[in-house]
C-alpha cells in the first residue's frame, strides 16, 4: 500500500519519481545503476539524515509531527493541558468522532463519501435508547431490556442505514454524495418520527456504562475507540478485504478486470460506516444519559475532516486508518487547547476550517507539487 513505506524509501518524492521514470530503461539488463544509487542516496556520509530524507520524513510522518508540535506547544503554554484529567477528557471528546472517522475512512478509500453518519448517530441513539430507558413513557413497552439487546439494536439500525446506502451506491451506481445526502435527511426524519421529536431520557446505568465507565482507569469510550481502531487497522492492512478496498479505490476498472467484486466491496464499506455510526450514537447517548433527536448534527463534517487531515485521498485508494486517528486527535486537541486558552468556540471553527484546507494543500503539494 502507498504511504506505508518507511522513511528510507525516497520514491515517494516527486523529484525522485520523475527520475525513476526517466532512468529506468527497460531495454538493457544493466541500466538500473541509478535506481541502486537512489536506494541509499538519502544518507549523508556522516550518517545523519540528509536533506532529502528530512523532506521524506516530514512527508511521511508530517501529520504525526504536526500533532506532536501541537501537543508540545499546548503543554508549554498551559499547565493544565498535560494533566491526567485533561488528557482523559481530550480522548473522551475524540472517541465519538474517532469511531465515525474510522468508518468514514473505509468509505473514502473506495472513492465514496458518507454524509449520513450524523443522522445515523441520532437514529441509532434514539432507537437503542428506547430499549434501555427506565422512563415509563419514552421507552417501548417492556423497557428497560438488557443492555446487550439495546446495543444490538443500535448496531443493527446503523448497519441497516449503511446497507441501504450501500446497495444504492454499489448496485445502482448513484453517486455516494447524493445517496448519503438523502440518507442524512431520511435518517434524521426517522429519528424525529420514532421519538415524536422528544428525547428519550433516563437510560439504565448498565447501558450508560459504555459512555461513562472505566476499564483500568481508562474511559470506556476510549477503550472502544482503541478496539475499533485495532480491528480496522487489521482489516485494511492485513486482510484480503483490505486489499480489495485499496484496489477498488485506486482503480475500479483494474480491480474489476482482476476479478475483484466491486459491488460487494462498496456495499461492505457503507455497512461498516453505518455500523460504526450506530456505535457512536450509543456512545453519545450513554455518555449524556439520554438520546436526543438533534444529536449528531454536522458530525459527518468532523469525521470527514479527520480523514482528510489524516492524509486519506478523497480520490480513493490512498490513506491509512492511523492517519485518521491522528487527524481526529488533532481536532480534539485543538478544540481542547483553544478551550483552555479561553478562545471562543466561534474562532475555533474558523481555525478548524483553515486546518482542513491547509492539510489538503500540503497533501496536494506532496502528490502533485513542483
Amino acid at each position, binding site marked *: 500500500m502507498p504511504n506505508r513505506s518507511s522513511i528510507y524509501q525516497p520514491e515517494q518524492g516527486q523529484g525522485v519519481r520523475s527520475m525513476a521514470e*526517466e*532512468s529506468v530503461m527497460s531495454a*538493457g539488463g544493466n*541500466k538500473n545503476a541509478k535506481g541502486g544509487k537512489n536506494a541509499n542516496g538519502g544518507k549523508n556520509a556522516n550518517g545523519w539524515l540528509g536533506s532529502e530524507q528530512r523532506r521524506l520524513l516530514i512527508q511521511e510522518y508530517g501529520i504525526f509531527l504536526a500533532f506532536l508540535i501541537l501537543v508540545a506547544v499546548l503543554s508549554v503554554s498551559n499547565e493544565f493541558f498535560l494533566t491526567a484529567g485533561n488528557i482523559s477528557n481530550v480522548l473522551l471528546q475524540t472517541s465519538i468522532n474517532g469511531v465515525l472517522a474510522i468508518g468514514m475512512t473505509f468509505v473514502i478509500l473506495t472513492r465514496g463519501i458518507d454524509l449520513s453518519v450524523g443522522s445515523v448517530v441520532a437514529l441509532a441513539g434514539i432507537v437503542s435508547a428506547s430499549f434501555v430507558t427506565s422512563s415509563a413513557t419514552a421507552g417501548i413497552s417492556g423497557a428497560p431490556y438488557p443492555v446487550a439487546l439495546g446495543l444490538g439494536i443500535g448496531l443493527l439500525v446503523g448497519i441497516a442505514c449503511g446497507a441501504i446506502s450501500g446497495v444504492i451506491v454499489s448496485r445502482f451506481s448513484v453517486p455516494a454524495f447524493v445517496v448519503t445526502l438523502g440518507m442524512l435527511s431520511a435518517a434524521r426524519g426517522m429519528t424525529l418520527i420514532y421519538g415524536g421529536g422528544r428525547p428519550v431520557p433516563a437510560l439504565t446505568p448498565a447501558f450508560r456504562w459504555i459512555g461513562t465507565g472505566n476499564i483500568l482507569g481508562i474511559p470506556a469510550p476510549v477503550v472502544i475507540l482503541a478496539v475499533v481502531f485495532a480491528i480496522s487497522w487489521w482489516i485494511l492492512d492485513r*486482510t*484480503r478485504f483490505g486489499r480489495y478496498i485499496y484496489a477498488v479505490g485506486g*482503480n475500479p476498472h483494474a480491480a474489476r*478486470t*482482476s476479478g475483484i467484486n466491486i459491488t460487494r466491496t462498496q456495499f461492505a464499506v457503507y455497512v461498516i460506516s453505518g455500523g460504526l455510526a450506530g456505535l457512536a450514537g450509543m456512545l453519545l447517548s450513554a455518555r449524556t444519559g439520554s438520546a436526543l433527536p438533534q444529536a449528531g448534527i454536522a458530525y459527518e463534517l468532523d469525521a470527514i475532516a479527520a480523514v482528510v487531515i489524516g492524509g486519506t485521498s478523497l480520490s480513493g485508494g490512498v490513506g491509512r486508518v492511523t492517519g485518521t486517528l491522528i487527524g481526529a486527535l488533532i481536532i480534539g486537541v485543538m478544540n481542547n487547547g483553544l478551550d483552555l486558552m479561553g478562545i471562543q468556540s466561534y474562532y475555533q471553527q474558523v481555525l478548524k476550517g483553515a486546518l482542513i484546507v491547509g492539510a489538503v494543500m500540503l497533501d496536494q503539494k506532496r502528490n502533485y507539487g513542483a
Partner: protein
Amino acid sequence: MELLLEVEGLKKSFGGVAALRDGRFQLRAGTVHALCGGNGAGKSTFLKILMGIFGRDAGSIRRRGKEVEFASPADALASGIAIIEQELSPVPHMTVAENIYLGREPKARFGGIDFRAMNRSAQKLLDDLEFDIRATQYMMNLSVAQMQLVEIAKALSHNAEVIFMDEPTSAIGEREAQHLFAAIRRLQAQGRGIVYVSHRLSEIFQIADSYTVFRDGAYVGSGALADIDRPGLIRMIVGRELSEEFAKTNTPTSEPGIEVAALSCPNKIEDISFSVRKGEIFGIYGLMGAGRTEIFNCLFGLDRPSAGSIRVDGTEVSIAKPADAMAHGLALVTEDRKLTGLNLADSVRANICMASLPEMSPAFTMDRAREADASRGMREKFQIKAARDTMPVSGLSGGNQQKVVLGKWFLRNPKVLLLDEPTRGVDVGAKREIYRIISDFASSGGTVVMISSEIDEVLGMSDRIMVMRAGRSAGTFRREETDAQSLVHLST
C-alpha cells in the same frame, strides 16, 4: 542553410538526478525528423523543455539562429513551435471549432464571440488539411483518431513552423495513420519542420527522412534515414546488438485451447468464431473500433454476449464475470494499462498480487510472506526494473509497468492468455522481452490470443491471424499466406 531549430547541450535534472544530460537536435525546413529513444531516454523531458513546461538547467535553443527562452507554453507557441501531445486534452462538450480556437476566439461586438467567423476559419483549416471533420461537430462525438486530427489542426492554426508530434499514432488505426501521414507530407511541402516521436520503427521509416537518437538522457547520433537500416537504428536506440526482433519459438499442438463459436454482442460484434490450439499464438488484427477489444470483453465476462459459445480445453464454459473467466484459466492484459490494468496509486507488489488475492489469503488474512515471494518471483522472471517492490507502480517506465501487468496474470498460471495491444507505448527493448515472454508461454503449451494494430507485430508473432472489420471477421489466415498489404486491405 538556416536551421528552423537548433538545440545544444540541453540539461535538466530533477532532485539531483539527471533526466537529460546532453540534448542535441537540429531541424531543417521541409523535413520530417524522427526523434528516437527508449522509454527513459529523455525524450519527454526534451519535449517539455521545448514546450516551455520545464525550465532548462543548461544548454541553448536557437530558433532560426536566434537564441530563445521559453517561460511558458505560450512563449513556445509565439515563437512558432507547436506540440501535439500524446495524451489528448479535448473539451468534449465544445465544438471542434471552439476547441481549435480555445482561449483566442475571434471577438464580436460587446465582447461576445464571433461564432460564424470562427466556424468558417476552422472549417477552412480542416478542409485545407483534407480532414473529413465538420467544425460544428461536438468533440465528444468524434473518434479518437478524429480528435487526434483536430489536435493537429489546432497546432497548425497557430501557424507553427515547427511541429512536434509525440506518438501521434498510438491511439489510431492504420487507415487514420495513413491520413495523418498525408497531412504531414503536405506540411512538409509547405516548408515546415516536423519532429516525429514514435516507438514504431516502421512508421519512422515510412514518414521521416532524418533521425536523432537519444539514450540515457543524452544525444547518441543523428543522420539521414536513407543511410541506416532498421537493425542499425535499433542498435543505436538500445545501445547493443539485438538478435531477431520477434522471438518466436512456439509450435502449435493439435489440442484445442479456446474455441469460440458464433459469438455476438449487439452493435459490437457479430458471429465471431475462431479456435486456438494449445501452443498457438492467434493474432487479431483490425482498426480501432472494429470490435477487437469487444471480443475479449465478452470472453472475460466484462460484457454479456447475446449469443455464442465458449469452450476452454474442449469443455463449454459459462462466463458471467471476470472471476468466472479466471477460474477457467483465462487471463486478460487490457489495452490501456493505466486505465484498466494497474492501480497506479499502489505498489508494484500490490499490483502483481491484485488478481490472486483470494489464493493468497486462505483464511481471510493475507499471507504476507507469500505476497512478497510472488512479487519477487515475477520481478525476477520478467526482469521488472524497480528499486524495490513497495515503490508505487506509477514510477516505473511503460515497459516495466506492462511487465507488472503480465506478472499479475502469470502468477495465476493461466491456460489462455488474452493480450490486447501488449506492447503499446513500450520501447523496443522491452517489446522484445514481452515477445519473448509470450513466445515462451506458448512454447510451454499455453494458448495466446493477441490483438494488435501493429502489422509487424501481428505478422511477426502470430501463427494465424484473424482480421476484424466493422464487428465481423473478414477472414483468418496463416502467417505464411498473408502479408501487410492484404491485412490492411481486408481491415478497411
